[in-house]
């Protein structure tokens, strides 16, 4: 096959080689975090982590474990670079988005190391496309310092019901307020728009609620979290956690085309004026 003969000759120079029989297992996940043009790639023997940040208050991470790839070879402990995510996605989907049964696009992703472009070999039905995308110096992603010991409230919800709520959110509202409490209303999403306010309440005993652990009433106000709706759309479960500082962590469990599990995570810091209760 075309791809493998090519790799035999130039494999030695690459610090990272990753192959997928179905490129959608990577492109779909990346679409869930594409709200900014640039992404920081970090590969370790465990797999690939892609980070996108916005104004230091919102961060999205996509994790694709090494096991998802048909081939994942890394020669260093950590390989990192920054790349234009929009361009990367355009290349990964270069054969179009059709989902004809049995036809998949294969990917071989190769990186030579610092200063080299990321090389993509994409093949579908015998046609091969080679893309080389320039890489940049990777910035250090912000560490939101969200650790499980500081978590005050945690719920795990099935995504289906949250999808409905997010699709109906009043866009004229500047903020989305998330209230989590051991007592009524338990878990509430609120918006404050031009004509009034809206509340979506999920009781703790709802069959959509897989886990409900709230120790104290907390209200967090954030910007509408619009970017996270893509991740929500792909996911089957969401875990919502807040910590003592009012930081929010959203973790989405995504099943790819082959039924394997990947994670997408959003961290959000609270709105500064957000102290009043509504």
């Amino acid at each position: 096959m075309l791809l493998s003969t090519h790799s035999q000759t130039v494999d030695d120079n690459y610090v990272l080689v990753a192959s997928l029989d179905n490129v959608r297992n990577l492109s779909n996940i990346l679409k869930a975090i594409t709200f900014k043009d640039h992404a920081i790639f970090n590969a370790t023997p465990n797999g690939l982590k892609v980070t996108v940040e916005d104004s230091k208050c919102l961060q999205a991470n996509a994790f694709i474990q090494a096991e998802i790839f048909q081939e994942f070879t890394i020669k260093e402990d950590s390989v990192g670079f920054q790349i234009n995510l929009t361009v990367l996605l355009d290349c990964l989907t270069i054969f179009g988005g059709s989902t004809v049964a049995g036809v998949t696009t294969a990917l071989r992703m190769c990186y030579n190391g610092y200063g080299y472009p990321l090389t993509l070999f994409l093949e579908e039905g015998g046609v091969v496309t080679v893309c080389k995308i320039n890489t940049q110096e990777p910035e250090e992603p912000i560490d939101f310092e969200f650790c499980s010991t500081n978590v005050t409230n945690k719920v795990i919800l099935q995504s289906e019901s949250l999808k409905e709520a997010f699709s109906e959110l009043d866009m004229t509202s500047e903020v989305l307020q998330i209230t989590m409490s051991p007592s009524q209303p338990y878990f509430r999403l609120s918006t404050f728009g031009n004509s009034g306010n809206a509340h979506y309440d999920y009781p703790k005993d709802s069959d959509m609620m897989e886990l409900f652990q709230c120790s104290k009433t907390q209200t967090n106000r954030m910007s509408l979290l619009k970017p996270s709706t893509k991740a929500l759309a792909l996911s089957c479960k969401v875990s919502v956690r807040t910590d003592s500082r009012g930081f929010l962590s959203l973790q989405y469990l995504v099943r790819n085309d082959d039924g394997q599990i990947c994670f997408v995570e959003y961290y959000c810091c609270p709105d500064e004026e957000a102290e009043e209760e509504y």
Partner: protein
Amino acid sequence: MDCVVTGGNVKVLAKAIHSLSRIGDELYLEPEDDGLALRSVNSSRSAYACFLFSPLFFSRYVVCIPLVSCVLTPVLLQCVQAVFRSLSSLDKTVEKCHIELVGEKSRLTFTLHCKHGLMKTHNLSFQDSESLQAVFDKDSCSNVLRAQPRLLVDTVLHFPPALEEVSLSVSGERVLFRNYVEEEPERAKAMLTELSLSSDEFEHFAVGAESSITFCLKELRGLLVFAESTGLPVSVHFDLPGSPVVLSVTDSVLEVNFVLATLSDDLNLPRSPPPADDFLNDDIDSYLIAMDTSELPGPSNAPAQRSNHRLEAQSPVANHRLESEEAEEEETGDTERPPNKKFRSLFFGSVCPTDSQLTNQTATSQEVLASDSEDDAQAASP
């Protein structure tokens, strides 16, 4: 007011709101003793719709005195529509809907109790308003038709979505639906569609005298969307052209009335087959010129030029026609002329000013109901 709608009625309420939003961009929510009325009127006051839900429609209906009437402005109406979005899934997801109107606080609250325990609450601030009432008496209409909505839906299906007005004519045992095309040049080029229905297709057919009315199709479609979903028959009450037509849908818990203005001086009566040779209308010379110019390269040029020539030639003729009351066409075989449009305002009984612009109209301007700017332009030119 405090009321609760359960089960399938939530979807009926949602459809009513959507139907009303096709009439006007404001919705009047008026709780009354005999039920909850949702009303709307369009900006030109030529279409009015009212959905009256009797207390039996609700699983709970409480009205507080004094009665408060609220108007939902376009922004609010959009909000309310958003509450009842995704009509198809409403009956599967919403178990009950609680509507509360608190006059003193000017607050309107919709609470939807959905599947899986999810509760959606929307708090809106509304404006007080006067009640919106139309004066009409459908029982005094001399012509009444009643049909299953399917029949009317299938009928209007044949008209293009962009068609503005439709004419309904009754005579003897037949009902005719035709698209309404008003301007002479347009008539010659337009596709005229005519549907004939026999009186047997109607559940009720009571016709006083031969009559023909023309009204807005968009509003009829708005009612039909609602009627079809409920499967209830639609009644059409009308009189002479100029008097409003009342379309209604009724059952034990709900009464819907759409009152639409009709064109007065409707000369759109069924006529003999159109003249075979439309070119009798044309000035022969301009036609010949147009034929020559059609040889020029660029197909887009030829038709435009041709039509301009035709219009210019006709203009003095057209003006002459409009000024005289019952001018018969001498040069042409066509007995039709575009009627002046006079929509009566339903509520104030005034007659909209005749479009005297028509007599000043230049050939290239196609708008019969030219806006005031047309007049200004005319007045401004020395």
